[in-house]
């Protein structure tokens, strides 16, 4: 999945995890051999996790002529930023970045508007048919996108939407909307009842109660789910690579995966120095986003697992 967030998520406003179990670290405290092995494994895992990032940055900083040299240089002796310039101004990434922002932004906005209202209905109002709706939404969160690829492909073609951003805005709702509804309804359900009651006592209509009282209270949940929807839409690849045909309509993942071959003078069929500069460029904003919102993201992604 492409962009696969597990859709189990349900956001709970209070941060869990006040209690921390004290576990024996990596086996035994007494045995220095085991302890040594434990730290060795830790270093190996950390290296495995971090090295690809280092290597992407290293390759992006390496001048074109050196990229293919053997033996490989582990630290570029003459680092340069020119690859970043080439990646951005060469036009390979500029339009895809714009396209991805438009698509992911619109999808997020639509999911939040449509999703928040449905989530409020499911989370705060008791009505006949609610349980069935909840099951339907939950099962939609694991809907395999590939199952309807052919139908969407022919439909979008009939409507003239193939090779447009609209095909993605529409089809991405399949995975962002059920997920948004599911997470937000549990968020709404967990809000305190008193404010809603006093709004009704003051004579507010059900809609006004939702709009003026409950929706502002749900703002943290909206931020978390919006962020997760945005990241998922930004990362999606299956539909994007199937529906988009020309480079001017590519989103970021399609552009990265279909980087045009190097022009003359390069030792490579694929210009890896430029591709790596591209991966660094599109990864940086996500890292910033993750660092800013890490607490919310962790809470959003994990509370489903905690609840079981």
């Amino acid at each position, binding site marked *: 999945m492409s962009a*696969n967030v*597990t859709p*189990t998520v349900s956001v709970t406003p209070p941060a*869990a995890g006040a*209690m*921390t*179990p*004290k*576990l*024996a670290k990596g*086996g035994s405290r007494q045995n220095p051999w085991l302890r040594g092995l434990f730290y060795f494994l*830790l270093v190996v895992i950390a290296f*495995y*996790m*971090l090295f*690809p990032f280092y290597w992407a940055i290293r390759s992006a900083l390496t001048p074109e002529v050196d990229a293919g*040299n053997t*033996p490989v240089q582990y630290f570029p002796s003459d680092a340069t930023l020119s690859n970043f310039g080439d990646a951005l101004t060469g036009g390979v990434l500029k339009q895809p970045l714009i396209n991805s922002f438009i698509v992911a932004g619109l999808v997020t906005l639509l999911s939040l508007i*449509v999703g928040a*209202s*449905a989530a*409020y*209905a499911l989370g705060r*109002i008791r*009505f006949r048919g609610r349980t069935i*709706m909840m099951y339907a939404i939950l099962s939609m969160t*694991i*809907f395999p996108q*590939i*199952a*309807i*690829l*052919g*139908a969407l*492909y*022919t*439909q979008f073609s009939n409507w003239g939407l193939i090779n447009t951003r609209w095909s993605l805005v529409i089809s991405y709702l*399949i995975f962002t909307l*059920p997920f948004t509804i599911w997470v937000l309804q549990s968020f709404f359900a967990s809000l305190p*009842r008193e404010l809603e009651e006093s709004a*009704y006592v003051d004579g507010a209509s*059900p809609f006004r109660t939702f709009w003026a009282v409950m929706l502002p209270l749900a703002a943290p949940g909206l931020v978390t789910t919006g962020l997760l929807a945005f990241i998922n839409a930004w*990362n999606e*690849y299956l539909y994007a690579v199937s529906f988009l045909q020309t480079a001017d309509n590519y989103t970021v*993942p399609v552009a*990265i*995966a279909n980087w045009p071959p190097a022009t003359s003078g390069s030792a490579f069929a694929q210009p890896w120095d430029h591709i790596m500069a591209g991966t660094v460029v*599109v*990864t940086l904003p*996500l890292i910033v*986003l993750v*660092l800013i919102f*890490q607490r919310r993201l*962790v809470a959003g992604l994990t*509370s*489903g*697992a*905690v*609840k*079981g």
Partner: protein
Amino acid sequence: MNKEFSFAAGTVRHRGGFTLHARQVRLAWLMLVPALAVLIFVALYPLVRTVYSSFTDEQFLGGTTHWVGFANYYNIFTNNTNTAASYPDFYSATIVTLKFAVISVVLEFLIGLGVALVLSSQFKGRGAMRAAMLVPWAIPTVVSAEMWKWMFNDISGVINDFLLRIHVISSPESWLADPSTWLGSVIAVDVWKTTPFVALLLLAGLQVIPSDIYEAAAVDGATGFGKLWRITLPLLRPAIAVTLIFRTLDAIRVFDIFNVFFGNTLGKLTMATAIQTTIVANNEVGYGAALSVVMFVLIAIFVVAYTTIFRVEQQ
């Protein structure tokens, strides 16, 4: 909404003689309509259409479509790859997908559990570690696949260079072409990308286990391993179940990594890349639809079986 409140609300009459509760219910349906309309339009209708075209020989922009009954399904289950050059070997794709799913999910779970246990102990920099673990999850799979593809490069990839330097291999290896290494290479990338996420899910499960249980166990003389086996793992069961089911579902649907690494290469297709190739590259919409239905049913069986087993266990 609790009972007393509904009762109180039910007795208050407002405009037009409707009770508050009746107005709430009407609002609920009004608020659900847009979402339902969208889901019917983007998911349910295409799904129905997929089932329908799985009984036809529909081709993308291919003229008249004929009803062919179960011919597509017959071809799939007899693995008839000869009817047209454009039918993929779905049997081999299924085997590849299952191998990939089982091995990668097991590795991700074991390593992820180890990382989660380490992170659940108090040490400096734990917060930073957790934030860092989100990064592989957040970057597009395609981007990480490209990073690894370059590292696996047979001429100037760093993996070959490093292994040559430390004399593990004597000549450069084509990791993604060699029949004995290509699947392992993809699994290495998937494990890299997803283990931190698995660890985060399990860590969240660990953090709601009350610490006094461990203190009581320590008083009773439990060892580190005993605590892990008799307390941590049983209490972590719900988190483990949720993690495993969603990871397995993701692994069965795997598309991005295989598409970036192998494109349409025969023998290296998964179910998802085989279907996408059938529909988009070969224009066989009808046959692709039948493949989609088969995959959909497989996933449904898996989900039902899994949830049933888990529910039985819980009782």
